[in-house]
């Protein structure tokens, strides 16, 4: 990992911003011979106010829905110019990746460009004021899925974008969390060794949107993993090669209780059904992905 700081201090991100952490770690892993592409989102607005820039590497922000396509064009141009040592990385939020940008991302993955696309997932449209996305955890209260006397928050499941990426038959797909920086940075670095498209989903808690103390970003991120809500794994050439085992599985309530967005689930007995459903979701993840107990698969090269 490079020790050089490529993500300058003084950005306008909120205290405890998970997206800023993810970006800083990402650049540690890529080094400075990189071109970074971002869709519209928090990251773009808090790093690129005209006249200032946090980016010590070339950085391109186009639109909300086209980072995958812009990165494809950059990569194709570099190939024609013979600048193939320079890496191309895209990093964007869940709105720009799970939702509006999924078409361009799918196109990029299908064509197999040498790009690592990283989605920092803070589970809602934070830049516009915490609106629900397809990455929002079920039953979270957001400004467009508010809890109320007739609502328990977001009703639909979280989209499994990493699985969708995997279905494109790309060489490398991984999930990660900013709560495990070394693991995330290793995955970014490892992704760059593959020929073809790579996708990394990194969980990045948002203190403002989720409603927790700004000092607790890493802890909240860790709880998401330790409860089984956010499985951490990696896959090479379509096969899952590694999962992060949970030493001591925690009940989902420990994760939910520290966040304002789930407050309504504890306000009365009415939330019991949803709490049970979320616990069941974690149980299923743990079972399906084999998250409990000791490591079984150890083909990690990082």
């Amino acid at each position, binding site marked *: 990992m490079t020790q050089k700081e490529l993500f300058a201090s003084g950005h306008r991100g909120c205290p405890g911003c998970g997206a800023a952490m993810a970006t800083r770690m990402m650049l540690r892993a890529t080094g*400075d*011979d*990189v*071109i970074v*592409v971002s869709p519209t989102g928090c990251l*773009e*607005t808090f790093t*690129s*106010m*005209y*006249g200032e*820039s946090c*980016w*010590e*590497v*070339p*950085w*391109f*922000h*186009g*639109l909300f*829905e*086209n980072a*995958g*396509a*812009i*990165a*494809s*064009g*950059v990569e*194709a*141009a*570099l*190939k*024609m*110019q013979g600048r193939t040592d*320079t890496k191309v990385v895209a990093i964007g939020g869940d709105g720009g990746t799970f939702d509006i940008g999924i*078409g*361009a991302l*799918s*196109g990029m993955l*299908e*064509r197999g460009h040498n790009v690592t696309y990283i989605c920092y997932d803070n589970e809602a449209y934070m830049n516009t004021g915490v609106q629900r996305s397809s990455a929002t955890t079920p039953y979270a209260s957001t400004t467009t899925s508010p809890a109320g006397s007739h609502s328990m928050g977001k009703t639909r499941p979280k989209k499994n974008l990493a699985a969708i990426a995997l279905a494109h038959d790309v060489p490398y797909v991984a999930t990660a969390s900013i709560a495990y920086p070394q693991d995330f940075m290793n995955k970014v670095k490892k992704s760059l060794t593959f020929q073809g498209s790579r996708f990394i989903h990194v969980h990045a808690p948002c203190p403002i949107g989720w409603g927790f103390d700004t000092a607790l970003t890493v802890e909240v991120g860790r709880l998401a993993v330790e409860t089984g809500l956010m499985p951490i794994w990696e896959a090479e050439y379509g096969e899952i090669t590694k999962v992060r085992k949970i030493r001591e599985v925690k009940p989902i309530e420990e994760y939910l209780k520290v966040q304002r967005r789930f407050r309504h689930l504890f306000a009365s007995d009415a939330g019991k059904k949803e709490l049970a459903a979320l616990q069941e979701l974690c149980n299923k993840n743990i079972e399906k992905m084999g998250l409990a107990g000791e490591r079984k698969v150890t083909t990690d090269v990082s």
Partner: protein
Amino acid sequence: MGKKAVIEGSMAIAIAVKQARPHVISAYPITPQTHIMEFLADFVANGELKTEYLRVDSEFSAASVAQGAVAAGSRAYTASASQGLLLMTEVLYNVAGMRLPMVLTGVNRSVGTPVNIQPDHQDTVLFRDTGMIQLYVEDAQEAYDAHVQAFRIAEDRDVLLPVLVCVDGWTISHTFEPVEVEEQEKIDAFLPPYKPLYHLDPKKPYTFGSISIDKDLMEFRYLHEEAIQGAKAKIEAIAREFEKTFGRYYGGLTQSYKTEDADIVFVAMGSIIGTLKEAVDELRAQGKKVGVLKVRSYRPFPVEEIRAALANAKVACVIDRAISIGFGAGPLTIDTQAALYGPNAPQVLPFYAGLGGKDVELKHVAEMVAKAEKAAAGEAVSAEPEYVNINWNLVS
């Protein structure tokens, strides 16, 4: 001397693009743009063209891929039509605002609903305010020439703007015409490889696509407007340099045909110019003083050239192949009227013609002239736009 061959308009464009040696081409099919992209795919398959040819997932991605490639310092090309161009809209504003010199072809086709695959200009006039340069061509030869020129214009260090070359679908894109194709070496000399002023390079990292607020957004707009106004002289100069090199000149911002002594001048864009020139020749043989002013550059709009060309005319018949629904005139009429506003301006008679591919024959031109003659003689005629060749039975 180049080589003259009878080829399809789409082939003329594909050859021009091939000879421009773009690093990246992004293709998404839409009728009637498809032949251009198919011919280019053939060139790649045959080894005639070395490029990254990307078959993308949408027109939105087609424009975005080309944008990314230009930002990375490469020459890039794409093309679309109608609904596909509309899907590119947000990207094209972005490309123009970022001052990235990409070239794309708009194969003109009407816009739904109702769905229609025939030519008019409803699709490309939409881009009026994007800050892109828009050139309209009249035939396959000009389509070839204009594409070669477009890269030069776009990449000029004083311009740095995307150029949209507008080519009427079918009438030009799918029609076989004799076209002179120049030798590659001569094209290479006229159009050297793209040398970007700014590009994505780790050795000199730039931030592209910053967020801008009230303190500087207007200043960006000012510079953009300055650049496209400055492009007027470049478009003319590059067309003249092309003439000097290859011996053909289809106009710079405009082209006048028999307007010097004309009382009645048609103002129009695109393939209808050919019909109008033929009609003018016939009408001149009958002793009528008519001419044609081709608007080749719709943006930047040739205000001074139009004023000069119409200085002695009594009536300007403006033909629109698009409607600004809700205004009561077409975009070319509105702009021409604005350009001519003031004392001694000729009377403007607006016509909608060729919408959705509606046929415009010589007799229709003669009818327009008959109306203009009345106006020229001082008779009161309606200044409301006339729907040429409309089937009143369908609308009554």
